[in-house]
């Protein structure tokens, strides 16, 4: 089980990440469900439902990716690496981590390049339907020359790109360090099998 069970700071951070994933998942479902109810029961439509769900979906997945790295959950092919002697295996795994770090850094640069125009010269660009929450109004003075945002500006949902890729870079660096010091010996999951097995075992109890 990967649910937070440890105490201390890392336990608290696990708990926060797991709660964010659960809350985003729940929010997506309820918004989409509410839109169906609105259409058939109240005969109206929640205009922003689809767009908001899409952004929540993107936030959940992109933020969750780094959690997956921390817990070695990402799927991979481990037949080759598993057949190597421990010393060679460690070196190969470190090379794999280096590739992952390269990916995360390139993505981080790309995300920043993509996002930065939305918060600087195109800060006026709004989403299609999502209303601007009142508590974010301070951005109008900061970035939009005091002009009122009628809809949420695009840089808010897109901010997840640089944030999540920075987190991902950090988690890959951490994984590399853990593998180097011998605290962990793999980057990828054993095909969900262990996890599923743990769940099955828990059910039989």
């Amino acid at each position: 089980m990967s649910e937070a069970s440890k105490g201390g700071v890392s336990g608290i951070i696990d708990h926060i990440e797991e709660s964010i994933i659960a809350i985003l998942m729940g929010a997506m479902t309820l918004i989409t469900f509410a839109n169906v109810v609105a259409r058939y029961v109240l005969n109206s439509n929640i205009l922003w439902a689809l767009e908001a769900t899409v952004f929540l979906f993107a936030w959940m997945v992109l933020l969750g990716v780094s959690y997956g790295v921390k817990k070695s959950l990402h799927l991979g092919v481990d037949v080759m690496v598993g057949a190597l002697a421990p010393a060679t295996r460690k070196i190969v795994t470190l090379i794999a981590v280096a590739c992952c770090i390269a990916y995360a850094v390139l993505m981080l640069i790309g995300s920043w390049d993509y996002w930065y125009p939305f918060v600087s010269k195109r800060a006026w660009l709004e989403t299609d339907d999502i209303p601007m929450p009142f508590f974010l109004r301070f951005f109008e003075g900061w970035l939009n020359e005091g002009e009122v945002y009628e809809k949420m500006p695009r840089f808010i949902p897109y901010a997840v790109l640089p944030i999540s890729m920075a987190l991902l870079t950090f988690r890959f660096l951490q994984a590399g360090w853990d593998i180097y010091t011998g605290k962990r010996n793999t980057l990828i999951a054993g095909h969900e099998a262990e996890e599923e097995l743990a769940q099955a075992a828990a059910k039989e109890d």
Partner: protein
Amino acid sequence: MEVAILFAMVIGLLFIGVPIAVALGLSSIIFLLVYSDGSLASIAQTLFNAFEGHFTLLAIPFFILASTFMSTGGVARRIIRFAIAVVGHFRGGLAIASVFACMMFAALSGSSPATVVAIGSIVIAGMRQVGYTKDFAAGVICNAGTLGILIPPSIVMVVYAAATDVSVGRMFLAGVIPGLLAGFMLMVGIYVAAVWKDLPAQPWAGWGEIFASARDAIWGLLLIVIILGGIYGGIFTPTEAAAVAAVYAFFIANFVYRDMGPLANPDGDPIPVLRKPQSLLTVWFHPDTKHTLFEAGKLTILLMFIIANALILKHVLTEERIPQMITEAMLAAGFGPILFLVVVNIILLIGGQFMEPSGLLVIVAPLVFPIAIQLGIDPIHLGIIMVVNMEIGMITPPVGLNLFVTAGVAGMSVINVVKAALPWVGIMFVFLILVTYVPIISTWLPTLLMGPEIITR
């Protein structure tokens, strides 16, 4: 050819233990930087576009959530009881009932490994108790579990629909008859093996038991009625149907079956709602609810990260006009539909042994789709062929997800599961050939219910 370098890079990265998603993404980035003038920002945009530009994929988290609520032990147990009551009295009845149970569970869940875990963790032990060998039990479950992606709802079908812009509803309908047929073929195979090996039959439990067990299982099975009925009735979009199914599954799990949530009682009968009315409020904050949301979120994240990176690779391929090049090359070589389908099957079978099904589909579908249309192959039929190939990929090493999960559930080594599954893989191969060359199996039901298809490309 540059594309060969691209694919060699993906495979090389996979083999040194890089996660599938990163292998796909990193290869695409390097390829773009070296051979084309794409910017890193455009890649980040493509990554985000996996969510913003593909509304169809939004159905995936909701189907996963519905299936997670339904994957509590209780639902699987009720389905198995019903299956045993109906077909248990045949020879090899418990194994036949397991296939039947897998088929029904597949209608609640869009994933094969989930089906193996839910059904397998209960029936493998049961089969061993009445005298089946462990190998027989594990082999049957490993194969029957693959029906999870063929019988709707199916996550792999949603991915195919998103990658090729066909209708999700049509794909789901197209999976019904092949799903039933594959299940039936497995059952016949088991019956023959049971007569030959003299395997036991369960006592006939009588109509009363069938009726009682059906009434108990019906709440779970209604989920598929909501999904299919809702989509074909034009009441919901597939995404909405999935979200409604998730909310329905939440209520059934918490308030009807009460296997989880505030009314669950591990030591005895569940608590009636009227005795604990505050549960209507506390259920929203119950640890079980949070745990299920988190588990579903986690699976979605792992799957979508692979799909999003496969979409980056797809973007690179399309930008380099690779699908057009392959189409021209194949047509110039004089490929007819039959030979073309053989090639598709071979590519997918080999690919499916190394790649996760959804990621493979995202990459291969756009490559073969334009040729198929040129050759007059129905897109829905092509989709079903691909799904069946993915099924076989799941039960063949080295990346056979079902093999690993079955090994875990049955407590066997992966090698032994491979051997145990082998005879039944033969049946799946016959089924693949049947589905490939008899298109009407796939296209009859969608055409009947939704009218003939309009192919726009």
